[in-house]
């Protein structure tokens, strides 16, 4: 059960006025808010034991290293990865995806195929386009239908022994669609293809078990997971990670350096060259602890309630059209009202103290699919309330009147 009063008190940022109105933060899919306990964890790092990690003999360095590696273990356990070193810390989901895409440069051959869904975020499109350019591999687009749902049959028929990689978002950031990753994994694996799952919009909202689902690669961002900015994770099965080639060199990631020959360190270090975002990683671990203290199941059912309520209330607005009608959706509603431009509505909502996102949400192909200039995207978190939804609906109606 969610104790909303208590939870909102954990997020001091929510308690402020924008333009004279109480802030209503519905831009959680872009960046989630950070609880006090995570902010304190970061401050306490700088106040108490800020120090470079690994290899340091002194007390502060040992303490920082321990905290950093504990965060890795926290995240390993949270996602049930089999080894801590299968969790690589990166600067964000985008960075994680790029590490994988670069890593396949020498593995893919001309004519190999990468299947990617039509509903991907730019961060999960461009790296694969670049990989195709480097290798001569072919990017194939698995289409969606009008409801914003992946057409699984078509996807299946596109798979062949040429398919080396399948790239899919767990949850669409533009529509909220939850993709059937179990089916996608089993189809792909039956063709010996590896699956890269973009969990940026999934990890904040429900529990994921890497081993149970037999996941190959999974990426996420801390700043969407109630943690600090500048941190992300890349999960990969040990064997797969060890096959990737390396394109970033530096301290930490080497075993031995001479000008003649450099040998690399083991996982996870070889993918973490240079001084990492130590405070960020420690904060990320604390954010996961915080999430678990609330319970992802509680979060999920509360957010579902918000979603259903909001969908019902929004549907009452004349000419409002929701994009993305999947049965399985999470915490995101994308819509337009008549021919009104999303920018206009967003700008007016802002004046009402309501933060939503407008535009193409870095998922231009899907916006192009619907032949619209963009949408208004409302995205929820477990600190949002039905009252906030009521105020938004009311404000939308007023905004619509102003604009017509």
């Amino acid at each position: 059960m969610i104790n909303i009063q208590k939870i909102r008190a954990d997020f001091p940022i929510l308690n402020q006025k924008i333009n004279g109105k109480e802030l209503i933060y519905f831009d959680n899919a872009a960046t989630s808010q950070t609880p006090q306990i995570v902010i304190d964890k970061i401050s306490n790092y700088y106040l108490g034991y800020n120090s470079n990690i690994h290899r340091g003999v002194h007390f502060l360095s040992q303490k920082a290293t321990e905290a950093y590696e504990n965060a890795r273990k926290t995240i390993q356990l949270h996602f049930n990865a089999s080894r801590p070193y299968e969790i690589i810390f990166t600067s964000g989901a985008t960075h994680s995806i790029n590490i994988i895409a670069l890593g396949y440069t020498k593995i893919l051959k001309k004519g190999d195929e990468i299947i990617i869904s039509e509903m991907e975020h730019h961060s999960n499109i461009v790296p694969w386009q670049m990989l195709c350019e480097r290798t001569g591999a072919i990017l194939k687009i698995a289409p969606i239908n009008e409801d914003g749902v992946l057409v699984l049959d078509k996807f299946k028929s596109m798979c062949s022994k040429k398919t080396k990689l399948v790239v899919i978002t767990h949850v669409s950031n533009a529509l909220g669609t939850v993709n059937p990753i179990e089916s996608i994994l089993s189809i792909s694996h039956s063709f010996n293809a590896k699956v890269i799952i973009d969990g940026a919009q999934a990890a904040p909202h429900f529990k994921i078990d890497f081993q149970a689902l037999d996941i190959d690669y999974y990426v996420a961002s801390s700043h969407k997971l109630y943690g600090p900015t500048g941190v992300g994770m890349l999960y990969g099965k040990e064997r797969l990670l060890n096959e990737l080639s390396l394109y970033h060199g530096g301290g930490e990631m080497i075993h031995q350096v001479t000008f003649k020959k450099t040998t690399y360190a083991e996982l996870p270090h070889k993918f973490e060259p240079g001084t990492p975002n130590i405070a960020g990683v420690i904060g990320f671990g604390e954010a996961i602890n915080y999430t678990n203290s609330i319970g992802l199941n509680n979060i999920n059912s509360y957010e579902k309630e918000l979603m259903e309520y909001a969908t019902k209330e929004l549907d009452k607005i004349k000419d409002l059209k929701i994009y993305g009608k999947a049965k399985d959706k999470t915490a995101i509603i994308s819509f337009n009202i008549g021919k009104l431009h999303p920018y206009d509505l967003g700008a007016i909502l802002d004046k009402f103290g309501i933060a939503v996102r407008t535009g193409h949400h870095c998922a231009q192909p899907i916006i192009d699919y619907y032949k619209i200039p963009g949408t208004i995207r409302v995205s929820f978190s477990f600190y949002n309330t039905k009252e906030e939804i009521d105020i938004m609906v009311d404000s939308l109606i007023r905004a619509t009147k102003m604009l017509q």
Partner: protein
Amino acid sequence: MKTISEIQQEIIEEFNIFSDWTQRYEYIIELGKSLTLINKKYKIDNYLISGCQSKVWLNAELVGNKIIYTADSDAIITKGIIAILLRVFSNQHPSNIIDANTDFIDVLGLKEHLSPTRANGLSSMIKQIKMYAIAFRTKLA
């Protein structure tokens, strides 16, 4: 013929009668609706200034020693602000356009719309207005 700063002053005074942002926005939306349409032949990609939130089309022509700007947008608030900008900059001498600033927009309480990070195309539009002015001044010289 009014100078750019006279027009800016005029607009500030017009806005002074509004007591809150709703009235200001309603007025801007009105302006947006009544903006003189840009000639269809300029509403193509060549004349497009693309912000990733809203699109802006801009054309400029030299008539005598003055520049006539016409513009359009797909978003109505953007269009309203375009109307204000054209009222200030259009039908002025290139040199005056180059020297002018847009601080009056802050006074109108519309500053955020001109932020380069808002990506509605307006801040690029102002850059483009100035570029035209520079180009035409060279032509006139």
